[in-house]
């Protein structure tokens, strides 16, 4: 099980940790994701003032309220465009996005496609519980074909979406998978994602104890395996192949794919410091106006 005691050891001097009550169900996989984020941010030597947590709406998306750092809790599906604007305004803060599988791949699917293309410099942690938690158990884009839910009484009629394969095919510059039941692995993965310059996606298998009766802690535990150390993370074709493995064949966890590529702000070279630091005054436009005189 999740070794919460070990995390508690550092809780007292970790400035990210709060005692805000959560509205999560006891035993939910979200707790260890929160603890792991707190732990890694602390170990990286960051302060709450250095970090902006961005989210949409859902159980996962409540996380920014449970961590002592800047927060931007937006609308269902809309975390990424808000993150993009926030990064344009001030890229001196470290940005993490926490959102659910429905939030990210369903309601926000279009934003996911295009912000991966932008290569925003952020860590995107998807709490993938393969279900809609907050709205009490409807199927999500990652719920398995045939799986019965509280809405799909005869089972899901559509093929599930494969987030990691999708991300690799989109050119995402860091694609990983982890498991909330393995905090050590999760922390290692978040740390690597934080060190990556560009869009780092971590699809985290997260048991929803209240509404997903299939993908339980035990179900994941029996299937996850660490990606072999000789996997070449720069080989896109191999990574895509590996990304096809899911379910009873096992669920590979670790970094599937990584590449170096200029990030969003690096592609806007005329902005050489955080945008928020530019001093502006009305007379700045006089040069444009004078040109309009003839």
């Amino acid at each position, binding site marked *: 099980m999740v070794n919460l005691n070990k995390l508690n050891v550092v809780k007292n001097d970790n400035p990210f940790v709060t005692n805000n009550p959560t509205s999560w169900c006891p035993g939910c996989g979200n707790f260890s994701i929160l603890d792991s984020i707190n732990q890694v941010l602390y170990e990286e030597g960051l302060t709450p003032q250095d970090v902006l947590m961005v989210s949409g709406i859902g159980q996962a998306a409540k996380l920014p309220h449970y961590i002592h750092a800047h927060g931007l809790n937006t609308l269902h599906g809309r975390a990424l465009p808000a993150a993009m604007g926030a*990064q*344009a*305004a001030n890229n001196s803060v470290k940005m993490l996005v926490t959102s659910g599988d429905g939030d990210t791949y369903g309601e926000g699917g279009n934003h996911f496609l295009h912000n991966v293309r932008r290569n925003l410099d952020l860590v995107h942690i998807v709490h993938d519980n393969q279900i809609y938690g907050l709205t009490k158990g409807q199927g999500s884009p990652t719920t398995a074909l045939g799986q019965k839910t509280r809405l799909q009484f005869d089972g899901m009629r559509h093929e599930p979406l494969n987030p990691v394969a999708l991300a690799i095919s989109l050119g995402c510059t860091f694609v990983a998978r982890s498991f909330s039941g393995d905090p050590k692995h999760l922390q290692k993965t978040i740390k690597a994602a934080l060190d990556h310059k560009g869009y780092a996606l971590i699809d985290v298998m997260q048991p929803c104890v209240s509404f997903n009766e299939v993908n339980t802690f035990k179900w994941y535990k029996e299937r996850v395996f660490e990606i072999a150390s000789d996997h070449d993370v720069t080989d896109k074709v191999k990574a895509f192949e590996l990304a096809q493995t899911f379910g009873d064949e096992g669920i590979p966890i670790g970094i599937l794919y990584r590449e170096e590529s200029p990030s969003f702000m690096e592609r806007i070279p005329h902005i050489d410091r955080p945008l928020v630091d530019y001093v502006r005054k009305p007379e700045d436009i006089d040069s444009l106006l004078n040109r309009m005189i003839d």
Partner: protein
Amino acid sequence: MKKTIIVAGAAGEGINTVEMFIEKILKHSGYSIYSYKNYMSRVRGGYNYSTIVVSSDPVYAIEEQGDIFIALNKEAHELASVQLKEDGLLISEMNHDNVKTILFSKEEMPHEVKGKNAFAMASVGWVLKYFGVTESNLERITNKKWRPEVNASNLAAATWGYEKATLTADFSKEQPERILVNGNQAVALGALSAGLSFYSAYPMAPSTGIMTYLSANEKEMNIIVEQTEDEIAGIMAAVGASSNGVRAMTGTSGGGFALMVETLGFAAVSETPLVVCNVQRPGPATGLPTRTEQADLAFVVTASQGEFARIVLAPLTVEDAFYTTHRAFNLADKYQVPVVILTDQLLADSTQSIPIFDTKSLSNERYLTVEPVEDYKRYDYDAISGGRKYPGIDKETIIMTDSHVHDPYGHVTEDEQATVLLKNKFMKRMDAIRTEAKAPLFHGSEDYETLFISWGSTYGALKEAVDSLIENGEKVALLAFSDVFPLSESIMDPYLSKKPFIINVEGNAMNQFGQILRMETGVRWQASINKYDGRPFTANYIMNEFEVIRNGQSK
């Protein structure tokens, strides 16, 4: 004195080039210019025209018919008889049976003049001479971005046309320095003057010009212009940027605004300053992409679920679009609310020669609290305006921006008292905004018996109509509202003591502003003049309708 030139043809045949040179050089020579583009939603072909009004005094609207008509193709040539006034002149490559024609036939043109643009440029030359422009000014017929050969052959053709003209009507005036801008550029410049840093939007006619202008000046102004995947992202990115300290804006037309609606409420509940420009075109749905209408007002003032404070501003003229946009940013920061600027295709695609914008008269008020504060409450229920902080403004404060009902620190709460306090705060904000709103512009005779009510761009044609009616001895005046929502209950009080006959004038069928005015003040109109054919109001149209109303009254 005033003359109207119409340049007509298909998209891609040089209407814009002809228009640009005529406007630029006539403005330089001391004329006032007002022009409007009437175009179809297509890239090539179709029937498009630009109307350029040239006058010794400022112009505020176009006329339907021209004094001079430049026909760039056969279809235009044939329509000249409809679009010209009775004594109008046609410039064409062919003779016209029932219109007086200045003929520039291909055969007549000397060899060195015959280029692709020869006819168009010869027409420019002819027009310039007609308005008394001196020959030395012909050299302004160059564009630095074009190849020297193109500029040379354009100049040759223009000189040839210039020499062919004999009629002159010089009524130019000594003028102070003026600029030529259209409504979209004025909005963009207003935003830049206010310190805009980030503009995120999705292309949609007739609003795209704002983004294009900003993008063209992105490096010089050190800003970021981002084309987003859709309008939802456009507005949400602007909120993300604004909540992190920069002035941000998005722009669209009604269809895109429909997609932005949820985030409008997010900006309001998270108390994030936001400026959105909706350049209206006729709806519903795709409607008429390149035409004009004022039919989004009712939608914009109520858009998004729940109750919250917002500001809706509708600039009256191109010049006003600049100053109103600048003001929009200060208001958004002061009250931490969304401000919607409602313009329309008429304003967006109207170019006017106006006094250079006075940037010295402006100041950018951010209403921020820069120093750290003990126990800072970002969302203090009593703070109606000001006191804002954003992440990184000081080295200590942690900022939470949230879409739920929240406590004073920005954290989710379902407490009933907090719910009420937050709502009360929004309502108090609305009251403060009402008090601060700009009074409508009054224009006309002091002893008016008829009072016209208008909002936004309709002011231009209405002003010209009122001026003409007064000249004809009528006792009329107009009120033009730029601050259209929220309205204070007493806003009409100063204008009603003489119990005027009220005529509501709007570019829609439902009298949307008239209804808001009635709802907020209890004042109702007795008659209305409406236009919803996708084309702008003209003074003539309003005067004719006024006549109809008057005849109806006396029956």
